[in-house]
């Protein structure tokens, strides 16, 4: 059984048919980049994988759990699926450490000392062990995004969804975030990224999914897709972003 499996997923925003029957299977340990023009439905697709968006037809199964519009099921699912956002979404009134520990205390019911130990380990992993008591507002964008990654990892998810996580960063800060992702890949984490970082998708990603007009238009191994795109749409997209 694949870790993430989408079966003919349809999604509408009112009359707008955003996802038109998406089939996609992602195995544990894979690093999959979802690319495509803005409005092609790639973020929506990602958000259907953890219930932030509801879909109208088809099925989504993640870690053997069906993703449905049900508060309780979605809360259980959140232990398997982590998410990192373009706008970080850190809690500005809490310190970095509190941000990372909040869910481990409240959701996983870990003891304060256990939570603290885990938070320190994770912050060290993302290179921010000295920022435990800092507030997010005093960190750079790249640092904030690394805290957000640590916060997600605290729930020990099986798959991490990354929604354009470098798009809000100054160019010189992108590298430090991508480095963390590379490290996660090396540890065997499953990563699904909606991204504009074509170099990262090509060099680090295992597989690329090209979304167009609400469908998976073309998919394949990263080096193949970039070296030898099959469809006209992908060719023109790659030409436009290069």
């Amino acid at each position: 059984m694949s870790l993430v499996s989408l079966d003919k997923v349809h999604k509408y925003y009112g009359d707008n048919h955003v996802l038109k029957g998406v089939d996609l299977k992602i195995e544990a340990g894979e690093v999959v980049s979802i690319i495509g023009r803005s409005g092609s439905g790639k973020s929506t697709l990602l958000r259907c994988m953890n219930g932030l968006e509801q879909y109208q037809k088809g099925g989504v199964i993640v870690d053997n759990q069906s993703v449905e519009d049900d508060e309780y099921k979605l809360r259980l699912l959140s232990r398997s699926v982590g998410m990192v956002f373009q706008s970080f979404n850190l809690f500005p009134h809490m310190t970095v450490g509190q941000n990372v520990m909040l869910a481990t205390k409240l959701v996983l019911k870990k003891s304060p000392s256990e939570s603290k130990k885990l938070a320190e380990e994770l912050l060290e992993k993302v290179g921010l062990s000295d920022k435990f008591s800092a507030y997010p507002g005093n960190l750079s964008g790249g640092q904030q995004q690394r805290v957000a990654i640590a916060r997600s990892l605290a729930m020990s998810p099986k798959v991490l969804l990354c929604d354009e996580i470098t798009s809000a960063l100054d160019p010189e800060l992108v590298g430090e975030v991508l480095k963390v992702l590379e490290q996660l890949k090396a540890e065997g984490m499953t990563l699904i990224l909606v991204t504009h970082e074509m170099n990262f998708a090509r060099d680090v990603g295992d597989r690329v999914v090209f979304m167009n007009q609400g469908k998976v238009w073309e998919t394949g191994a990263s080096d193949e897709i970039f070296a030898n795109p099959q469809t006209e749409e992908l060719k023109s997209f790659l030409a436009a972003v290069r």
Partner: protein
Amino acid sequence: MMQFTDWDILRNLLLAARWTILLSLLAFIGGGLFGLLLTILRSMRNTLITRLIQGYVEVFQGIPLLMQLFLTFFGFSLIGFEVDAWTAAVISLTLFSSAFFHDIWRGCIEALPKGQWEACRTLGLSYLQTMRYVIVPQAMRMSIAPTVGFSVQIVKGTALASVIGFVELTKAGTMINNAVFQPFKVFAFVALLYFLICFPLSLLARYLEKKNHVAR
């Protein structure tokens, strides 16, 4: 005939100002508690409750406070409850401010970025946990300045209680003027006293606004 010195006028006004302050305080506390209750009820996201509260807010924001005072004062006696001016004033000012407080606080909650809710959902926090640990602490910080700012409106609103015969600052001013016939002097004193109550509140609101702005 008795002569009033300026000090007599001011002294009597100051005595009446106690009632303005007490009425403001009661309206602030009563309106705050009731507004809080409305905000909690509304956060349960029940369509019917939300509609009812919306209606409540529209009614109390859409009718002049003066009419609300009249309706409370005369309305209660119509259904057989004799209420004195004091009770009527406290009730109407409480209802009036609760509508505004609720609206201010709802606005602060809704002003928080959607991403805060989404982050909580992806971390598996329940609705109540999200409110308790993430939304309310931030909304509270944001709401302090407008809440204090609105208290100035309450203080000024208490002046209207004079029309139903409640002797507070404005009513005392009218009564004293009837005795001394020096309207400009008397009402200048009245205005000054209102200003001395309201201005520190305005300063406090501005200070809190700046402080919280920097903190964000």
